[in-house]
């Protein structure tokens, strides 16, 4: 039988605020454990939460950029459960009156247009972070807890069961990440845990409309892991169903090392969180003009920019995609394109050599002065420098912010086109490579290129290649 895979995702994102959701403690990543805490986020007796305005603002911006409908009145609720990483024994979350309802992301999967719908978006606080001496809290001699993370604002996004494969889930997450980076609401770093994703997955006979029994997959720590884990789990379910078995509703833990989704022991799924309205906070009432102001300030979305880059600059889809995916790279391109009009050449340099250098040197596109990039490409276009030199100059721009023209003057890196300067070099190369000269005379073209290379090397890549070829031909003949 052929099955259709049905996947829904639950995504948690850290909102990029400077302070926590209900207190003024810093949200900075990587601090000494338990140094970014106060009575409120430690849940000390008598402390009370105060809602962070900025967190609400970022949540609204994120929701708006996902076309979700902001609710004029939402509410905070307590989700009660006992765990050492949860200082108050309840998490302040939103239950039946979330911040936003609905929304969608449009994307392409293998050329096919797909619209993935969202169920809801809400705000909640992060618990602390546990580290166990053993595998889990139950088989450890001790566990350590860091409350720096406790109270960091999270946005939870729940999709409808609209995804059909691990690959599609991954594409969705990549697009989601791109949109949220554009909106500036989260830095979406899966490796730092600022973007986390759990999935519900079930199978059904192709064509069926009813949902099969689902399992929940957790602990997927990268986009790649999401794809692998969900494809693995879909395969496992398919094998069971094909053999006439049935799926047990359970939670599986993705094991990155073994590439397996392992069912968790215990009584998961039977938890009763005893939600009730948080009495320490007032309902969150948002005025229309406030939402409208935020909507008006919303930046261009990636899907819009991708199309605009193609239409406005004539870029091909691949270039447009790369310049969109990395927002500040795209910004650099667009600023430079204001003065440098060979857009496609600019795009090739930006998404090629420049991006490679930025990654290699751990630099951000915003650190590169567009004027230097324009200077460099202009010098290249006008034949003042050779391509290899241009690459070196670009590296200097990225690493040190050096002005390429100044560096060329300082170090004499300009192109050598003077016959008087080139002839001695060419003569020397010919004298040292008699064999190659003989080969050429016998008609072997490869040897000619070899000699060109030798001359280029001898001039540190600065010789004008056309002049070199002309000279070589002259002198050999």
């Amino acid at each position, binding site marked *: 039988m052929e099955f259709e895979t049905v996947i829904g995702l639950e995504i948690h994102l850290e909102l990029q605020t400077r302070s926590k959701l209900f207190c003024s403690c810093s949200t900075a990543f990587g601090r000494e454990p338990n140094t970014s805490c106060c*009575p409120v986020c*430690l*849940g*000390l*007796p*008598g*402390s*009370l*939460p*105060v*809602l962070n305005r900025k967190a609400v603002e970022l949540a609204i911006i994120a929701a708006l950029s996902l076309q979700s409908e902001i609710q004029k009145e939402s509410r905070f609720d*307590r989700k*009660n459960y*006992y765990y*050492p990483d949860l*200082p*108050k*024994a*309840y998490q302040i979350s939103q239950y039946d009156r979330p911040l936003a309802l609905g929304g969608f992301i449009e994307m392409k999967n293998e050329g096919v247009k797909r619209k993935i719908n969202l169920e809801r978006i809400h705000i909640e606080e992060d618990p602390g972070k546990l580290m166990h001496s053993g595998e889990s*809290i*139950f088989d450890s001699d001790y*566990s350590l*807890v860091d409350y720096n993370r406790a109270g960091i604002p999270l946005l939870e996004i729940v999709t409808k069961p609209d995804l059909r494969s691990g690959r599609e889930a991954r594409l969705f997450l990549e697009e989601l990440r791109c949109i949220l980076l554009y909106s500036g609401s989260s830095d979406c770093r899966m490796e730092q845990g600022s973007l986390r994703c759990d999935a519900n997955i079930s199978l059904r006979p192709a064509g069926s409309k009813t949902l099969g029994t689902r399992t929940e997959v957790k602990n997927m720590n990268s986009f790649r892991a999401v794809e692998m884990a969900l494809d693995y789990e879909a395969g496992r379910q398919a094998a069971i169903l094909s053999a006439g078995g049935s799926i047990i509703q359970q939670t599986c833990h993705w094991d990155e090392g073994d590439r397996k989704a392992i069912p968790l022991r215990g009584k998961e799924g039977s938890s*009763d969180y*005893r*939600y*009730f309205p948080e*009495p*320490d*906070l*007032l309902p969150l009432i948002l005025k229309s003009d406030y939402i409208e102001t935020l909507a008006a300030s919303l930046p261009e979305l990636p899907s819009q920019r991708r199309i605009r880059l193609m239409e406005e600059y004539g870029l091909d889809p691949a270039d447009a995609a790369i310049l969109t995916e990395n927002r500040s790279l795209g910004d650099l391109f667009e600023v430079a394109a204001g003065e440098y009009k060979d857009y496609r050449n600019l795009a090739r340099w930006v998404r090629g050599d420049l991006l490679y250098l930025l990654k290699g040197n751990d630099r951000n596109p915003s650190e590169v002065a567009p004027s230097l990039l324009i200077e460099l490409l202009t010098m290249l276009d006008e034949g003042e420098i050779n391509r290899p030199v241009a690459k070196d100059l670009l590296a200097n721009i990225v690493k040190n912010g050096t002005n390429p023209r100044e560096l060329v003057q300082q170090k004499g890196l300009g192109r050598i086109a003077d016959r008087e300067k080139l002839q001695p070099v060419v003569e020397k190369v010919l004298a040292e490579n008699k064999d190659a000269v003989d080969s050429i005379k016998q008609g072997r073209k490869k040897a000619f290129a070899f000699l060109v290379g030798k001359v280029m090397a001898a001039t540190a890549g600065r010789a004008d290649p056309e002049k070199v070829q002309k000279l070589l031909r002259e002198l050999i003949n």
Partner: protein
Amino acid sequence: MELYQKTAAELSRLLQDKEITAVEVFNSFTERIDEVDPHLKVFITCTLDSALETAAAVDRRRMENEELHPLAGVPVAIKDNFCTEGIKTTCASKMLESYIPPYDAAVVEKLKRIGMPILGKTNMDEFAMGSSTENSAFFVTRNPWDLERVPGGSSGGSAAAVAAGMVPLALGSDTGGSIRQPAALCGITGLRPTYGRVSRYGLIAFASSLDQIGPLALNALDCSLLLEVIAGYDQRDSTSLPHEVPQYSAAAGRELEGVRIGLIEENISANFDPEIKFAVLKMAALLEENGARITEVSLPHTDYGLSAYYLIAPSEAASNLGRYDGVRYGYSADGDNIISLFSRTRGQGFGAEVKRRIMIGTYSLSAGYYDAYYLQAMKVRTLIRRDYEKAFQNFDILVGATTPTPAFKLGEKADDPLKMYLSDVCNITDALAGVPSLSIPAGLHSSGLPMGMQLTAAPLNEGLLFQAAAVLEKCSDSPPQQRTALNLTGRGEL
């Protein structure tokens, strides 16, 4: 007359006139504490050293003619569920027996800022759950009028302290009567302010939507003076109200001409002690003589108040008290794993009444029961609120008895939670509605025990309550001291 027998207003006047010093005041009250606390057992922790420093500093500053708050140098006691930086805050629970908070509650900050010496932390029912202070994990506090009787609760320590002249002023917390009921049983005045009037920041939560901090004192004027200090907006408490704090103490002395008073039928119920009913009617008549208009009024949903309260308050409590799990602070039992650490800590650290309420609350919030219990109770709460809104369209003040009976005997209701809950029956609906409510002395019962009358106003109308109370005090032929236990206990039974 000893200094400890004076009201806060009198002490304030004498201090401002430099006729006495804050250290003299301190000495008088601490001697009184030495004398009577061994019998009454009011204080869980005494903070006399820091209080003396505060008093001495006030005297120094006054010598230098610094402008001081009128209550500077007037001692105060606080219930042991207010966080005090560096000083044990136990909630009268084994769970927090040695817990030392790293910060001061908002109200404690305010008392310190104006130079009120804090003499100590008073006994209470564990986590403020109870009506007799018998639920303290440490010891029982006795009623200064009769040592065999309870002082009421949960702010029983604070009420007994004021009634016995150990402090002129005290702070309590009132979730469903915990200020007013002990004030009535100890023959003093106690106010539950409008919900949100006083910041709850640093008050260890029992039921967040009901908890409110208020003053206990010998008379209405003293209560109003302390309320002026503690009331006001605090951005750390999202439920605190932004309204300006009026000069409440100016209300005493205003006439009652034209004030419309409703006598709550349900709070002078047929099964109440007849002497209490009579006392309330007598006081109502006094109000009428002073120009008020009295009519009977019914709050029809009052009968459901107690049931609703005993679902809402335990539900919130079950959640608020979840944090006492032995992981970070407070009592921690040995466990083989995390589950047994949790369950043993909570099993051993909490007393019976607290556990009972946690179980009720957990049950009421559980899937499948939520609609029938918590949600239903919240609907009743809305109806009760509407009762009040409707009543306040026609009345300025509602009056009735504070308690159905005078102080009961130690142990009398300890084994019957329902009977105990019923002693708050007149106090619950005000709390559910979030309206201000004041208990004032209503004379003595034939048993020699004090009785209390409760006056309730619309939100933020505390001033009106003080106004009516002051009129009644003026009509009474004895000064407040003689209506309290000060003379009875000082040299007599104690």
